Each structure stands twice: as structure tokens, then as C-alpha cells.
């Protein structure tokens, strides 16, 4: 998949939750966007931020083929991401994409899959769910957050599958963590995908391992380049150090050295 550097134009900006911004972007000349797959990410250039030296890796939240738009859901946690949140409609954003490998989406039609996301880790689950649904796969989302304000894009998620939620304060869905949700005991799944905080992914991985369910996790180790040359973002796997940016971010659970 050819990687490209291009300037995209901000078409719209939304605030799906406090401290989160959703940027929808398109090409400046209406040429079609490069083909992007669920699980891939982009490196976003941050301008006018002296403390931000490197690009920011941001996962692809959604690709709207009809409108030729790519969406980035950004949690504003530092100077760089806050500066990205300052972009307004019409601004240009320099991006490198698509980067990384992808989630497995060519499952048998009718397969039953669970997509588990926590915090801003829910971002790649939207596009993944949309593509899986298109492939006639039975999608369920299990999304967790601290409180209901931090559960993002629920109305859009609901378009592509059954929706289950947990919040730590009980303000939406079941109270607690995703791994405690009752759906995990009620339903049987053929495949689990997960992205979010590491403790959450490890807990879900343990569940998948015990039930002997195929599981793919998306990692977000700290990286400098995003395309496999700096070797900073390595995850220690059964096959040695692997770059999360180029050999991931999606890894089959069986390849990881996580204690299950």
C-alpha cells in the first residue's frame, strides 16, 4: 500500500466529548483519498507548536467514501493534540497515510464478532465495524469510558452493530469495566478486536484466550517516524522486537508476550 504525504482540508470540526475533537478532512483538489483500511493510522503534522517536534500518530476513525472524507478523532492531551484541535474549517493539515497494517476483515459472512474499545481507543473501531458490516459480519460493539461524556460517537456506532457500554461511574450502560460486562457471559463470539488502554486490552485478551477466541489488538507504543525506520515503537513479541508502526499496530494476540 503506497504511503503518501498530502495536504488535506478541514471540512468540519465537531466536539463529540469534552477534550475530544473530531476532524473531517478531504483532499484539496477533490482527487480521491488514498485507500485506507481499518486499523491503519496517519501521522499528522503539528504547526506553530514549539514544544511539538514530531508528528502525531492518529488512527483512522472513519472513511466516508461518498463524501471523500477521512475522520480523525483526537483526544487533546498535550500541546500537539491541542494545536490540532485548534484547526478550523478550511485549514490545511499535512498528513502521511495510510500507515501500518490492518485488522482482519475477510471473515466468513455471518461470523459473530465483538469490537472492544476504551477511551479514545474506540476511534478505529468505528471504521472497522463499518467495513465488517459491509462484509456481512454480525458486529457487536462493547465500548467503555470513565463516564457518559467520554463515550463518543454512540449514534454512529449504533448504525453498524449492536451496542453495549460500560462506564466507571455507571452513568451509561453497565457500571464497571468492559471486561465485566454481562454480554461476555451471554454471547459467544468468533473473533474479538480491541483497542484502548493496555490494562483493558490485557483483560480482554485474557478473556479471549480462556475462551479460545481469535483476538487482534491494536497497540499505540510511542513512535517517532510512523513508517518503520526509527525503531523506537517496538513491542517485544514471540518473534522478537516488532515495530508497532509498520509491523503493527494490529497484532494477533498469539504473537504477543502478554501474560495470560
Amino acid at each position: 500500500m503506497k504511503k503518501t504525504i498530502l495536504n488535506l482540508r478541514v471540512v468540519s470540526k465537531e466536539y463529540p466529548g469534552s477534550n475530544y475533537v473530531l476532524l473531517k478532512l478531504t483532499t484539496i483538489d477533490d482527487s480521491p483519498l488514498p485507500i485506507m483500511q481499518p486499523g491503519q493510522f496517519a501521522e499528522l503534522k503539528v504547526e506553530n507548536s514549539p514544544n511539538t517536534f514530531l508528528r502525531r500518530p492518529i488512527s483512522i476513525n472513519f472513511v466516508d467514501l461518498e463524501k471523500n472524507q477521512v475522520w480523525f478523532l483526537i483526544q487533546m492531551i498535550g500541546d500537539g493534540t491541542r494545536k490540532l484541535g485548534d484547526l478550523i474549517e478550511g485549514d490545511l493539515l499535512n498528513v502521511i497515510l495510510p500507515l501500518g497494517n490492518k485488522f482482519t476483515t475477510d471473515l466468513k459472512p455471518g461470523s459473530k464478532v465483538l469490537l472492544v474499545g476504551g477511551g479514545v481507543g474506540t476511534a478505529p473501531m468505528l471504521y472497522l465495524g463499518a467495513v465488517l458490516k459491509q462484509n456481512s459480519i454480525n458486529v457487536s460493539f462493547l465500548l467503555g469510558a470513565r463516564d457518559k461524556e467520554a463515550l463518543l460517537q454512540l449514534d454512529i456506532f449504533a448504525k453498524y452493530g449492536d451496542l453495549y457500554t460500560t462506564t466507571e461511574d455507571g452513568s451509561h450502560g453497565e457500571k464497571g469495566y468492559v471486561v465485566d460486562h454481562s454480554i461476555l457471559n451471554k454471547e459467544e463470539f468468533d473473533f474479538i478486536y480491541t483497542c484502548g488502554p493496555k490494562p483493558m486490552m490485557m483483560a480482554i485478551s485474557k478473556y479471549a484466550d480462556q475462551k479460545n477466541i481469535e483476538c487482534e489488538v491494536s497497540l499505540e507504543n510511542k513512535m517517532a517516524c510512523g513508517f518503520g525506520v526509527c525503531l523506537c515503537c517496538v513491542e517485544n513479541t514471540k518473534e522478537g522486537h516488532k515495530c508497532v508502526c509498520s509491523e503493527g499496530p494490529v497484532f494477533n494476540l498469539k504473537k504477543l508476550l502478554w501474560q495470560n
Partner: protein
Amino acid sequence: MAKLNINIGNLEFKNPVMTASGTFGYGVEFADFIDLNRLGGFIVKGTTLHHREGNPYPRMAEVPMGMLNAVGLQNKGIDYFIDNIYPQLKGYDSNVIINVSGSTIEDYVATAEKCNELDKIPAIELNISCPNVKEGGMAFGTSCQSAEAVVSAVRKAYNKTLIVKLSPNVSDIASIAKAAEFAGADSVSLINTLLGMAVNAETQKPLLSTITGGMSGAAVKPIALRMVWQVYNAVKIPIVGLGGIMNATDAIEFLLCGATAVQLGTANFIDPQITVKVVDGINEYLDRHGYKDVNEIIGALKINN
């Protein structure tokens, strides 16, 4: 259009722009972004005699105008390079240079001997300055005696262009450069990364698994320029300057301070097309100032006037 060709030893480069080891992979990773044939040369990642897994994660910390890394020479070894990477690089019309690293003099020599057999590799860069490995690495580059010993040994085993990459983590880089020159180096490249450290005050933990790491990026340019200038005034062999070059103007500053060529490193992470932009920018500068040949500005820094 001015003449951009430069020479390092007997080796001609079509322009003075190269890439810094460890920031450019094996070059092929950049084929989607640039035409690699437009580069004067590209220096592939640090290669050792045997496979190295490198240091544990985390290996990177961003700092204002720069970053720290603690990769620790992760690579699959020279034999893997020869069998799997070299065939992919043979066809490029650019000087492909291997950065050779090691833990012992014997390792350096053995790796250099293997490189000597590769027709399409016209030069090696001897890395005696990696701050991220426990034994060897920087230790060879921090004393004149050990630098001279390893360069002399490799010189006997390697008969093509030999560039020696120097560490800035020394009290007098010019004396190390002179030791490398005396031992038979055709060129010195400088600077490798500066030893640094980053801490998270909240968790009270270091940000790198190795606690300390090598700093690179825009912030290190003034130190690199100073060292290039000092070395330029101390040796006769050509200098390859690097450290914090982010654009063509930065590159020209290094040429003015005495570098015959430059390497772009960390800048490749932020703009993978920066190398060709710097080639174009140097050309534009030479035209604008009425120079016919890039060699006219090497060491042309105006002092006292």
C-alpha cells in the same frame, strides 16, 4: 544550476546531501516518498556482525525541538543485510553506504571485511559513537588511543572510502578527529547524538528504558556546527556534517562551517521528503548568490569582515 558534485576521498557524490544512519532504514522505506537516485548518498542503519535485538521499550522521548532515542543498534546483522537488503539496493544510482558498528575491534574488522566484498557499496561509515550500547560503541570514540586503534584495524581490512562517525560526548572532538585522520580515515562525520535524559516528574521515572539516551533534532544544531567548525580547523580530510539539520539553510550553514557534505537525520521522521528539498534548496541558494559550484562555499565562513 550550479555544480553540486563533491568528493570524499576518491568517491564522487552527485550532491552533498546524504541521510544519517538509523533515521533512514535501508532507504527502500522512503521509496514511496522520494526518488532515492536524487540523493548524494544514503547511509543505511547501523549494522553489526551479529543480529542485535536492541534495547527494551520505551526507546524514545520527545523533547522541545528534538528527541531522545535509545534504540541500541537493533539490526539483523551483516549477513542478513548481504542476503536480503543488498540485492534491493544494488540498482540505485546513489552512493549506498553501510554504517558499521561493533562491540570489539574484531567485530568491526569482520563486518568491514564483508562490506569490502560488496561491489555496489563504495564506502562504510564506522560508528565509534553510539551512546546506546553497553560495550563498544561510543567507548571507541571517546579516547584518541581507542579511536586510532579501531580505525587503524579497519583501515587494513577495508580498501574503499572509510568515513568515521564521531561522538560529541567528548571534551575535545578535534583531537579524536585527528586520531581518526592519522589512522587512515578518508573522512569524519559528526555529530552522533548527544547523551541526554528525560524524566516524568509525576511518575518519578525516566522516560527511556535505558535511563539515558541520544539526543537529536533541531536543538542540537548549534553544538554540531561548533564541532564541525573546530574539526574543520584541525584536520585536512573532508567532513560530513550532521546534527539538527531541518532544512536547506541549516545544511548550508554546515557547508560554510567546513562540511563537504551533510547528513539529514531526525528531519526525515517529520518530512520524509526533506532530503530532496534540501538538494533543491542548496541549488537555489548557490544560484541566488551567483556560485557556480557548491565547493565554493565549503568552509567559506566569513570571519572578521
